[in-house]
């Protein structure tokens, strides 16, 4: 077991330093690149925070959808293959819900400000 602070705390503290202390000192093309760099660290922090829980739920859904066990990547390969062969499609019970949930979990890490995601999230909260 590794010691603390946790990776989440570490990436967050570097991102905050770059955002608050370095950004005001940089201009031009490097300011743009610095913003990209901060965005990367923020994404990594979100992934470290959320991935464990979302992967576990994804494996649970895939296990029941496919009737088999495996790692999250193995199960995704099997699902992709079955869709390609036409063995599974949107009429398959649970597939649309699974894909929606999985995709929402990806957006929560990749681009939580994406307009389509924000609208669907608001919809989930109302429901």
């Amino acid at each position, binding site marked *: 077991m590794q010691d603390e602070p946790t990776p989440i705390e570490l990436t967050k503290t570097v991102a905050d330093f770059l955002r608050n202390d370095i950004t005001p000192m940089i201009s031009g*093309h490097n300011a743009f*690149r610095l913003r*990209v*760099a901060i*965005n*990367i660290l923020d*994404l990594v922090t979100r992934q470290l925070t959320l991935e464990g829980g979302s992967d576990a739920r994804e494996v649970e859904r895939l296990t029941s959808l496919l009737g088999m066990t495996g790692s999250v*990547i193995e199960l*995704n*390969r099997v*699902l*992709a293959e079955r*869709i*390609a062969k*036409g063995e599974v*499609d*949107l009429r398959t019970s649970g597939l*649309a819900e699974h*894909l*929606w949930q*999985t*995709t*929402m979990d*990806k*957006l929560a890490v*990749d*681009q939580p400000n*994406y*307009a*389509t*995601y924000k*609208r*669907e999230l608001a*919809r989930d909260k109302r429901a």
Partner: protein
Amino acid sequence: MMEEKLACCVGSWYPGATGVTAAEKLSGGASQETWRFDIVHPEGNVGAILRRAPRGYGAAPSRAAGLNAEARLMQLAFDAGVPSPRVLHVLTPEDDLGPGFIMQRVDGETIARKILREEKFSHARPKLAWQLGIVLAGIHSLPHTHLPELRRMTAAKELDEFERDYRSLNWPKPVFELALRWLRDHDPGPSTEVTLVHGDFRNGNLIIGPDGVRAVLDWELAHLGDPMEDLGWVCVNSWRFGEIDKPVGGFGSREELFAGYEAAGRRFNPARVTFWEVMGTLRWGLMCGGMMQRFRESPEHSMERAMIGRRASETEIDLLKLLATRGGEHAR
């Protein structure tokens, strides 16, 4: 160095030009290099743009029409009254600037978010969806006889390329599989009418002024095919930049786009446009995947490309919205 070469080049074809000034490399454009500069002339300086292949850049990607074709298309569009920069010169080996061309600079804005939000475009915005219909009709009406040699594409051919690109990622994406399958099942077949297709006609590749569209840029993906492809691509959600209820580039409705297209004497097919919107959404998703590959493989390990790679999931949610609307119903 660059200014000397440009001055030498410009002097050989622009009567009265005495040199060039203010040469500056513009960022953006992954596959091509863009420079802005002014041609010095006793009757007043002329703003110009150089577009060329970056040094050491190997063969053009198979999808690109090539810089000479791009120059020819822009000139044809300009001559036909389609908003387009005037091409001033196609580079020759004597210019020692590589392959490319020089065009007149058109003032205006290309950054989509600024066009969608800044006050100075507030009068143009409501007219743009309609105007884009007119412009596309103009592009699709360019006579075949004058066109340079271009690839002839169909949805089926493009789907084969999508499939190859997706498999080369070697990373399972069930939503992309679903989209590939849907597109194969819903391909309406080759279009009865084949026209010039711009191939990348969208918010971000247009110069917009307070009066509306001033120029169509980035013809490098031009080909021959179904004209409805361009109408579908301009509606892809990624080019609405947050204005998701205004399908045409975040400016307006499909109905306005179609009305402009029809007013310019051309017929549209909404079902084909929808098919191409799904195609386009997957296409951008795969292009994001391509950026991820280039991030990994090219020595500069660009952070920007890495982050574009992480935008593929945006197209996954948009594909789900198109194909698996929540609440039970879905496209069949």
